[in-house]
């Protein structure tokens, strides 16, 4: 049996039913699929897994939906049409036409991606809804990924569904006129989703390890399923593949985060780097250079370099200069300072850091102090390095990050 079958089918079948029911009945689709999965969990151990588990779950969900609509008379007028629709997708699923069914699932997921990432929703709600509807995660798991309480996450999802209902957001692909803004919104949500998994894959929560894979899966769907493909979708995918390729090397045996220059590059996933390069090539076709293009270019420099020393730092600095022009965020400036230090020495990097030190976000950003500490160490000032690492440790949110900084403090002789 497939790993994650329950979670996978949750994401597939909620999408296909929500598309059939309409996004205003999203919660009904989620509920009946959840009920059907519970029924599967309870009965399959006795009966064995059915030959076509998807069709079994879909049929059970269909029956629950019909019970519900008859009892509550939700669609009094539309009911016969609805029944016919659901029967149609069930016929395809239960063996009649599997390719057509798989095609419809992909199409439904793509449409629901645009619904979940509607620009009218707050960015965090877009990601939460995507995780719930398209990736089959539970509210508790999503809350853990966002360091939120399950109650707060449940409320956030309720408000998001209410918005979709009140604004009558249809599960349709966006028109040409609104495509650019809608796709941009999906990109941002996928990027957030990926980063959520990437920044803390050492955390204990079950969900994190799978977030990067889901972001890539949905990105591939956006790039390759009949929807007019945009160059920046390929750029985003290239970026995600390059970063995901490094994940196996990111933690040492003790679960401590390894910075790029300490990673065993033989552990990097060559297959993912290859996919990244294909998408990077495909991303060159567009008229605009987006932040995803620049970040993918930087990630490609790292992915293709056999060692830290042989990295093309001048090229990376160039790309960071361009990126800083698009996005004045202090985090970008911080990364640019690292590249500058590699090109022009630690003192140049430290000067660049001093220029941004007062910026509000960075004051509470442990990486700022981690980088500053590293550069002071290279500059030979162990006392200043130690101060920086200690400040960073106070600000770090994740245990793995704190452990890493503790080790750095020791290295600095503290």
């Amino acid at each position, binding site marked *: 049996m497939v790993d994650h079958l329950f979670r996978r089918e949750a994401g597939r079948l909620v999408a296909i039913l929500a598309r059939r029911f309409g996004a205003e009945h999203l919660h009904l689709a989620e509920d009946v699929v959840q009920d059907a999965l519970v029924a*599967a969990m309870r009965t*399959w*151990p006795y009966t064995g897994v059915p030959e076509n588990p998807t069709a079994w779950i879909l049929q059970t969900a269909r029956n629950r939906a019909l019970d519900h609509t008859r009892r509550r008379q939700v669609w009094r007028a539309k009911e016969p049409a609805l029944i016919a629709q659901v029967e149609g997708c069930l016929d395809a699923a239960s063996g009649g036409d599997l390719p057509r069914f798989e095609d419809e699932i992909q199409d439904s997921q793509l449409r629901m991606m645009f619904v979940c990432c509607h620009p009218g929703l707050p960015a965090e709600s877009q990601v939460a809804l995507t995780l719930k509807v398209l990736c089959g*995660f539970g509210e508790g798991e999503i809350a853990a990924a966002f360091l939120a309480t399950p109650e707060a996450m449940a409320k956030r999802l309720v408000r998001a569904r209410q918005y979709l209902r009140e604004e009558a957001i249809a599960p349709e692909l966006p028109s040409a006129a609104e495509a650019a803004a809608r796709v941009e919104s999906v990109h941002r949500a996928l990027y957030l989703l990926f980063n959520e998994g990437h920044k803390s894959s050492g955390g204990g929560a079950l969900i994190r390890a799978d977030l990067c894979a889901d972001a890539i899966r949905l990105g591939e769907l956006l790039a390759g399923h009949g929807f007019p493909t945009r160059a920046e979708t390929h750029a985003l995918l290239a970026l995600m593949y390059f970063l995901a390729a490094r994940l196996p090397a990111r933690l040492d045996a003790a679960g401590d985060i390894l910075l790029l220059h300490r990673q065993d590059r033989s552990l990097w996933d060559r297959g993912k780097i290859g996919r990244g390069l294909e998408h990077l090539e495909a991303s060159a076709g567009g008229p605009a250079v987006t932040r995803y293009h620049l970040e993918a270019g930087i990630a490609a420099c790292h992915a293709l370099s056999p060692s830290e020393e042989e990295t093309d730092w001048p090229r990376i600095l160039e790309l960071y200069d361009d990126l800083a022009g698009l996005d004045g965020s202090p985090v970008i400036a911080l990364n640019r300072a690292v590249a500058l230090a590699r090109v022009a020495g630690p003192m140049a990097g430290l000067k660049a850091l001093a220029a941004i030190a007062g910026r509000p976000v960075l004051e509470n950003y442990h990486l700022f102090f981690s980088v500053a500490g590293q550069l002071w160490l290279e500059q030979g000032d162990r006392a200043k390095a130690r101060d920086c690492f200690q400040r960073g440790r106070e600000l770090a949110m994740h245990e793995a990050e704190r452990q890493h900084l503790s080790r750095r403090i020791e290295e600095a002789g503290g």
Partner: protein
Amino acid sequence: MPNQEKAQFLLLFRHPVDQPDPSPEEMQQIFGKWMAWMESMKAQGQFVAAAPLQDGGKVLRGSRGSVVTDGPFTEAKEMVGGYVIVHARDLAEAAEIAKGCPGYDYGTVTEVRPLEKIPHI
């Protein structure tokens, strides 16, 4: 007949109904444990039969079954999820088999009952 000397026992599983639904990923884990347990009973020749029970049904009582209700079948806060029939030497061995049920952490209660044997006379 390898199991000639062995008796058969009914394992009946009652689950609490007032618990929140697990997430799909948690369901996968729970399901995996139940499947593994069923497989291990089969591998050891203990398994005879099993079936899940649906939620609904009827209860009949009174003169010629004239009083028909939709329940309750058991305590209101429980539902019977299904049964397994196993071969075992005696009740103690059957209870030992029932200890392998992975549901206890989720509140499952297992009843172990010997099936009455029809004597060959």
